[in-house]
């Protein structure tokens, strides 16, 4: 099964200015440990737009339509990494910068057939302190808090 990760920087001019940058790392969860995924990178393509919305629509209130609307003539600087998954559970860690906000967000994927499902995701609009979120994620995936925090 393939998993997509998005790394991008975007400056939105419309309808109001927003400077957003996101880098994503993903880890397979196995035996209480985290194993960083190896991925192949390429440029963003419109066929990635639905996955982009799935990832960032609720997490940081950013959709592909926002990018189209906001960027004027500037190209969308986004790298898509595709990672092959063997395991069942994946932790994604997002380093997010939105204007003055800088933080780490998490999501947890269950890689079941036919579609992977998201069983946990942070939302920048409703964000608990990082410690609380780390504790929650740690319990959910059965990995020590310290490892989640350092991921």
């Amino acid at each position, binding site marked *: 099964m393939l998993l997509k990760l998005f790394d991008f920087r975007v400056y939105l001019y419309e309808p109001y200015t927003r400077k957003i940058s996101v880098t994503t790392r993903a880890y397979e969860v196995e035996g209480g440990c985290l194993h960083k995924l190896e991925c192949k990178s390429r440029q963003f393509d419109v066929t990635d737009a639905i996955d982009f919305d799935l990832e960032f629509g609720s997490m940081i209130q950013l959709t592909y339509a*926002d990018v189209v609307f906001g960027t004027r003539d500037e190209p969308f600087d986004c790298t898509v990494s595709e990672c092959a998954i063997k395991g069942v559970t994946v932790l994604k860690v997002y380093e997010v910068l939105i204007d003055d906000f800088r933080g780490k967000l998490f999501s947890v994927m269950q890689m079941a057939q036919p579609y992977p499902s998201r069983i946990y995701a942070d939302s920048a609009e409703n964000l608990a302190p990082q410690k609380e979120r780390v504790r929650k994620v740690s319990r959910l995936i059965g990995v020590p808090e310290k490892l989640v925090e350092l991921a």
Partner: protein
Amino acid sequence: MESSLTEEHPLLKYSTIKDLSSDELEAVVKKYIQVLMPKPNVDYKVYIGKAPELREGEGLVAYTLSPCPNCYSLVTAVLLRRENKVYERKVCPEHGEFEELYYGDYDTYERFKRWQEDGKGVWTPHVPITQFCPYNCGLCSRHKSHTALLNIAVTNRCSLRCWYCFFYAVKAGYVYEPSLNHIRFMLREARKVLPYPAVAVQITGGEPLLRDDIVDIVRIAKEEGYHHVQLNTEGIRLAFDHELAVKLREAGANVVYTSFDGVTPYTNPKNHWEIPYILENLRRARLGAVLVPTIIKGYNLHDVGAIIRFGIKHADIVRGVNMQPVSIVGRVPKKERDKLRITIPDVIFEIEKQTDGQIRREDWYPVPTVAPISRFVEALTGRPQFELTCHFACGAATYVFWDDTQEMIPITRFVDVEGVMEMLNKAAEDIRSGKNKYLSTLNILSRLGKYVDVSKAPKRFRSKRKFLRYIYNILVKHDYSALGEFHYQSLFLGLMHFMDLYNYDVSRVQRCEVHYVMPDGRVIPFCTFNVLPELYRDRAQKFFSYEIDEWEKLTGRRLSDEVYVRNVKKLIESDIYRKAYEGIIDVSSIPYEDHVLASKKFGIPVIE
């Protein structure tokens, strides 16, 4: 459960589920969501990527995504500036280029854009994201605004046969009329959307007052937690049934939204003759009305000033006038569209002209302007609040007051709206960053007076204390009745421009806050429900409908018996009619033949 499910025309025999409880219905109807969702490469294709190029004399405003008006395929569109207007241009590889006026004044576009604020999104989506917007509605987690006004269609029957309408039961070929338990299920589903569940519902149709159980429906909406219940009706039944208005009021209806396209029979052939009786009966029942004119260039644009004056004349019962620039449904050639097309700034400018500058363009603000009030209350209470965060191009509003001379005084003449909103934003920011909320509130109260110049207000508001008390009650006590009281002393003027296939903009629909709940429990933005009807409204309503014969057999009624036949002679004879329009138009100057012709031309037969 009898159902025939083919890819293109899924159908369910509604009579087999009509007696189920709302819990039983939940298990049954949700199964069909996947069946009813739009299908890529069947219902639409995707051609996004290449944007139309700008031409000489054009400037870029923004790019967006929009469906092809012919085949619904999603394409990239450009919003461009030309001669100080904003246009949308898009090219479908199969159907060529489409260009449409998007906003009639670029300066207004820019002024309104400054007020854009986004909501907190949808934390409990009904559907996962599997398709492009707007083919994934339900709501999904792309959506940015909570439901500010939920619509629920309770029937597609109608007693009118308006020439432009295509979805009433007889034309559609089926009767959509969910059971009371089904309505309860839908209302419950819509309130599951977090962070802020819907609290205002509009019961609509078809003509909702054709249902004998309409009072029960209002009661159910109240029971399900909707504080504000309004009925969207042409009002004809209310004109002749005073008791109904009383029963609706007693059941908890707050207001009646009624069509009112102009002050003459020529501009308002739908209910010109009945409006005086509707208002009279609402007055007796103490049930407020909002007049809802659809504004069409070359048809009733010249009436906007008179419509507002009519609203003020009846301000004891009319709470607002909510004008809707026409949304052009169906496929209409460009030449024809240009004759009809009107946008929010065009109506604003026309109002300025027709009120002799009493209501000026700068008196209007886009809907999200009031978002700082919600942000401030949210910072105070620590709980998500009702907030208005639709796209700035979707709506505009102002409040007008009047004095003894009947001169209209917009709120902006004596309240520095921008100053107040900036102050509230700052206070919310301070509280969020740890400042004492009580001190911040006190600070606001001490500074509020600075933003109000009561010497310019209507006489009855010249007591600063009285006016500030309204604002205090709303901001600090979060007292809904305070807003109501404010409403009774003023007239709300709104403009809401619903999109159509020619000016569609996905960035607007993702911010939509006027939603419909569907019979399968999905919650759909107004402009996908009505603009892509084959994919949403009609598909779902047809699926959960009765065949006409079956409905007539079940109820012992005939749809053809419901057609309204107007008795013009009787309606225009009464004092109620004459007095309602007195000072607005001279009704005695309209020949009887003109009354009859206007009604018939519109599609409403007349007893002669």
